[in-house]
Structure formats: structure tokens, C-alpha cells
């Protein structure tokens, strides 16, 4: 079953077509990967799905409903959350507060509730703290709850971005290069975390990643982009041996020799 579908998606920047007529159906409850060489248009693809950029052409459907022209913050409440390739945390806020911001759409206290602080508002605040703390436990950052977010290590910052995205209670989670800057140990932990998110929380995951080991181990399905166009799709085995993919990554000569390792 498909949860997120894009059809003939196009995004241009002036003369450059960063996403060029991409069609793809992301299966529900699975882990899909979007791969491709630098500048292939992967991040732009995410930015268009999450509403940061408007597509020039094409259709995006979440659960059968179009999300083209929906404002980014409303796309989040429809159930799409994301992390960023160039980490975008709320740097001077605490780790816990970062996650609590992610809970924004689930908190009902308004301006007057805040000022009056009725029991119900106080309870909600308390609950959001607890839930945020639980999410920190989930990604293994609970001991750092009071630290300032920008004082964390690279790997920890990436995990905090995941916790913050989970706080929006998404149906679909987009991860843009979650392993970038991580050491091999951290990457192994990350793989475990992503698997747990899929299994325990039943969230559909779409990830962009250059680390082929991670991609091959995690993905059920892979979409390959090059110069904005889809050059291949399939299960990891098919992609690994696909000559067009190898050519895009390693050039023509390598394509004659075989496999991406």
C-alpha cells in the first residue's frame, strides 16, 4: 500500500531543473531510500515534499490527498516530519525544549490559557515534558536533557533532530543524510534506531544517504536520482548491480566492471 506518492514532480531553479519529472510511490510502513550523486536533487526532492519549495509541476499525495500548495507547517500536521542535512536545531535552547517544540501541533494551550495557567494547561505542559523526555530516552539522549542543543556532538545532534521530528507524531519520517558526520559506532546505533522506529512506532521512513552500507542494510526499496531524474528504482539487490546506477556514481569505466560495494 502506498502512503506517499509523487507524480511527474518538477522543481526548477532558474535554468537548472533540480527535480525533473520524478514518479515514485513510497510503500507504507517500509523504509525507502533516495540515493544519487552530489547535486542529484535529493534534498530538493525533500524540500518540495515538505512544502519548503513549491513544485513547478506535478502532484504529491499523502494518503491519497494532495499536499501541493499546502503550507509547510500544515504539511507537518498532516503527518510528515523531517530532519535536515545541514543540522537545523534550535541551538541555544535546551535539548528537552527542542523536542517540546516538536510537540507544538499537539498542544492546545492558547495565549490566555498560558497566562491563567489553569490546571488543564499546567497538566498539558507537564505531559509534554514527560513525553519529550520519553522521546529522548528513545533516542538515547535523556542524560543530556538540560544541555544547550548546539553543545552536543554531531552524532547526538542528528539523533536529537530525529527525536524532535518524532515529537510531531508523524506518519512519514524523512531523514536527510542521518549518518553524515557519525563515526562507525554511532552509525551502527543509528541503524538500530531507524529499525526500531519503523517496527515499534510503525512510521514509514524515507531516507537520503551516501553511506551505501547503511542504505543496503536498511532499505526495502530504493529510488535513484541523477541530475534530477529517476534513473532506477528497486530492491537493494537490483540497485547494487544496476549499470546505470554504477555509471552515475563511478563513471562509465566502472560500470563495465560490476558492483557498488
Amino acid at each position, binding site marked *: 500500500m502506498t502512503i506517499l506518492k509523487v507524480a511527474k514532480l518538477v522543481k526548477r531553479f532558474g535554468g537548472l531543473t533540480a527535480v525533473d519529472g520524478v514518479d515514485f510511490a513510497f510503500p507504507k510502513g517500509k523504509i525507502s531510500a533516495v540515493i544519487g550523486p552530489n547535486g542529484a536533487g535529493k534534498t530538493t526532492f525533500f524540500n518540495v515534499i515538505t512544502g519548503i519549495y513549491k513544485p513547478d509541476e506535478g502532484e504529491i499525495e499523502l494518503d491519497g490527498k494532495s499536499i501541493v500548495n499546502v503550507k509547510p507547517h500544515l504539511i507537518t500536521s498532516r503527518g510528515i516530519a523531517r530532519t535536515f542535512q545541514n543540522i537545523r536545531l534550535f541551538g541555544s535552547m535546551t535539548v528537552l525544549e527542542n523536542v517540546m517544540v516538536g510537540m507544538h*501541533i499537539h498542544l492546545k494551550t492558547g495565549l490566555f490559557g498560558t497566562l491563567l495557567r489553569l490546571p488543564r494547561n499546567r497538566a498539558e505542559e507537564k505531559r509534554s515534558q514527560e513525553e519529550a523526555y520519553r522521546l529522548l530516552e528513545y533516542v538515547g539522549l535523556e542524560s543530556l536533557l538540560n544541555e544547550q542543543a548546539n553543545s552536543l556532538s554531531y552524532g547526538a545532534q542528528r539523533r536529537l533532530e530525529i527525536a524532535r521530528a518524532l515529537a510531531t*507524531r508523524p506518519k512519514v519520517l524523512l531523514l536527510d543524510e542521518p549518518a553524515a558526520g557519525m563515526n562507525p559506532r554511532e552509525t551502527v546505533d543509528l541503524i538500530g534506531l531507524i529499525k526500531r522506529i519503523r517496527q515499534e*512506532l510503525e512510521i514509514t521512513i524515507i531516507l537520503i544517504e551516501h553511506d551505501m552500507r547503511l542504505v543496503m542494510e536498511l532499505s526495502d526499496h530504493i529510488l535513484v536520482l541523477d541530475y534530477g531524474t529517476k534513473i532506477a528504482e528497486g530492491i537493494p539487490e537490483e540497485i547494487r548491480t544496476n549499470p546505470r546506477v554504477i555509471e552515475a556514481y563511478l563513471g562509465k569505466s566502472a560500470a563495465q566492471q560490476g558492483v557498488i560495494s
Partner: protein
Amino acid sequence: MNFMDKWKTKLQHLPTQASIYTLFVVVTALSVYFLDKSVVAFLLLLGSLLLLYFTSFKNSVKWAVGGILLFIVIPFATSGGLAHESYMEVATQCGIYIAMALGLNIVVGFAGLLDLGFVAFFAIGAYTYAIFATPQANNFISGQLFPLSGSSFWLFILIGGFVAALFGVLLGLPVLRVKGDYLAIVTLGFGEIIRIIFNNMEKPINITNGAMGLSSIQPPNLFGLKFTFPHQFYFIVVGILVIVIFTVRRLEHSKMGRSWKAIRENEIAAQSMGIPLIRTKLTAFAVGASFSGMMGVVFAAKQTFIDPTSFTLLESITILVMVILGGMGSVPGVILGAALVTILNLQVLTELTNWLNQLTMNGTISIPNALSPSKMQRFIFGAILVCIAIFRPNGLIVAKNRKVDAEQLKAERSHTPVPVGQSTGQSGGVAK
């Protein structure tokens, strides 16, 4: 070294702290009361509020002691000498500026939106009351209903705040689409435009009386008691200020406050967390403006005369300086910054000027004309600002994050299952 440590531990001892603090307050209060005019004693007495902030009493105790100081000790102590009204005037001005700086701190400090025209909202509040509390409004509303009596003042505090908030939103709607430096320039323009409009709205219909300003504004009236002296306005200002501080503290650590800071830190990420950018920025503008508007009403009533020259760009800059000096985003810092700048301008530097003038007149010293004390005043003020900027680049009291006690969270948490389930289509209380 050992000696110092000993003192440190002694000072952390609560009863010791309490007695030293009480002694300090009593001595300064008595000196203010008995000495005819002692600026130093008065400043030390005000300083006791700052000292209170640094004590390790419980929060509720601090609030209670602060209340007693503000409502009883300070008004009473200053009532002893000839300088009573001038002390109260300084304290009242401090209060007005603190409220405005706290308002601007929401916009600049929390939401990260640089606003260089903030005084416009103060002007709007002031004119809102002044137009209706003088015969001025008869020019465009028939029936000779105006001036409204001074008892309408209390309602006008709210109206002034509301009108200013409304203008905050009206300004914000077109303006908040631009960012950073551009926003600063546009708001600067807005501040000037408001002033120029007030300066020119005497034709075709005379609404603001133009550059002549509005005079004989009705003083506030509470059940027949007329407010005309600074020591009376002091209580109004402190009353509003308490509400303002309370509001700011509540907002800061709420969903709203976190959204403001999130936008300041990273707009794109904030959006991706479901925060509506424009609406959240507009609330920051509106809430910040409302504080200014309320104080504008008080200002108009206190001065009984206003004209556009009270609302120049320099005022906007001064308020911004208070925020930056005190510590952007830091509520205690901004309060200190505002108080310090006001006191420097109104009391310390004027005293210094007077003293130097006195010496020159007596012939004790001779100061060349180019360095006349009144010119020196701005120079010293500038020098102090530069020094603070160099030695405390993040402000006098740097903004701190609130820490949460993890043990308590774990102990108290309800035993519901992991809450991070899938959202069920409708959930998410779709941001209306």
C-alpha cells in the same frame, strides 16, 4: 584564599543572607528617609531589588520581598525629604521604560525580529488617551462629549494596549515577509511614519493637533482621587509593571515562548515543526506592542502634555539599547538594563552635570566650552555603553535556559505506554 572561601560558604547560609539583606535595606531606606537629598542612598535602595535577585531565597519569598520593597519601603523611604517627587519621578520613568523594554525583548530577544520603530506603539498608546481625554476628539465626534473624565483612564490602559497591539498586527502583516536587516529598515520607517502622521494630522480634520501637541490631558481619577504627582503615578506604573513581568515570565516558558525562540533560532526548522511563521511573529509584535501602548497611556496622563517630539527614533534606539545591554532574551537582564539606562540618563549624569556646573561657577575648575558638562553627559553615556559592550558582550545578565529536574520527571510520570504512536489522521489539532 581560604578566608574568601569561608566567607563564600557563610554567605550561602540563608539566615546570614537574610540578615545582611535586611540590614542593607534598613540602612539604605533610613538614609534615603533622613538625608535630604542623597542620590547614592536612593540608588542603593533601588539596588536592593537587584541584590534580591541574586540571593538564594525561594522564588515566592523573592516576589513577596520585592512587593514589600516596591509598594511600601521605597515609597515610604523617599517621602522623607525634599527630593521626594524627583525620586518618585525617576522610579516612575524606570518603570515605564522597563515595561517597554520587556515588550521589545519579546520581539527582538525572543522572536529575533529587529524592530527599530518600537516607540511608535508607545506613541499610539499615548495619543489614544490624549485625544479622548482632551477636547480634541470633539473635532471629529459630534456632541461635545470630550474630554472624557479621568476615571476613563483605567479603561484606557487596556484600550491603549489593545490599539497598540492592533497596530502591531497591521504593521506586521506586510512587514514580516521581509527578514533581518530589511525588517529593521522597514520598522524604522514605520516608527518615523507614525510620528510624522501625528505631526500632520491637524488637517483636513484636526485629530492630533499636529506639532502643537495636546495639552491639559485629564489626570487619572479614582473615586474622586486625582492623580497628579509622580508618587501617585508610581503606584500605577508599578502595578502595570507587575502584570507585565508576570505575563512575560509565563509566556517565556510556554508553547508560545518556545515557538518564538524556535523561529529566532531557525525559521525553516520551526516551520517544519508545525509552527506557523507569520502568525507566531504577529503575536510577538502584538504582545510586545501592547506593553508599550499601556505605558503610553500612563505617560500621556502623567505629562498632561504630549507632542510628536517625545517619540523620535532616538527613543526607539534607547529602548533597544536597554534590551541589548541587559541581555537579549533575558527578563532580569532587560529589567536591569532598562533601569540602569534610565537612571544614568535621568539622575546620575544630570547630577554629575550639575555638580560640574557648580564647580565651574565657583571658579574651582574651568572647563573649556567645547567640553561643557551637558555635552560631556552624552559622551560619558556612550563610553559606558561601549565598556559594557566590551566586557559583557552578551548583556549584564545573560539569558539562561530553564533546567528541568529529570529525577522528578521520571518519578511523577504517568504510566501510559510509549506515546509516540502514529498520528490518527485528524490528531495534531491542526493548527487553526
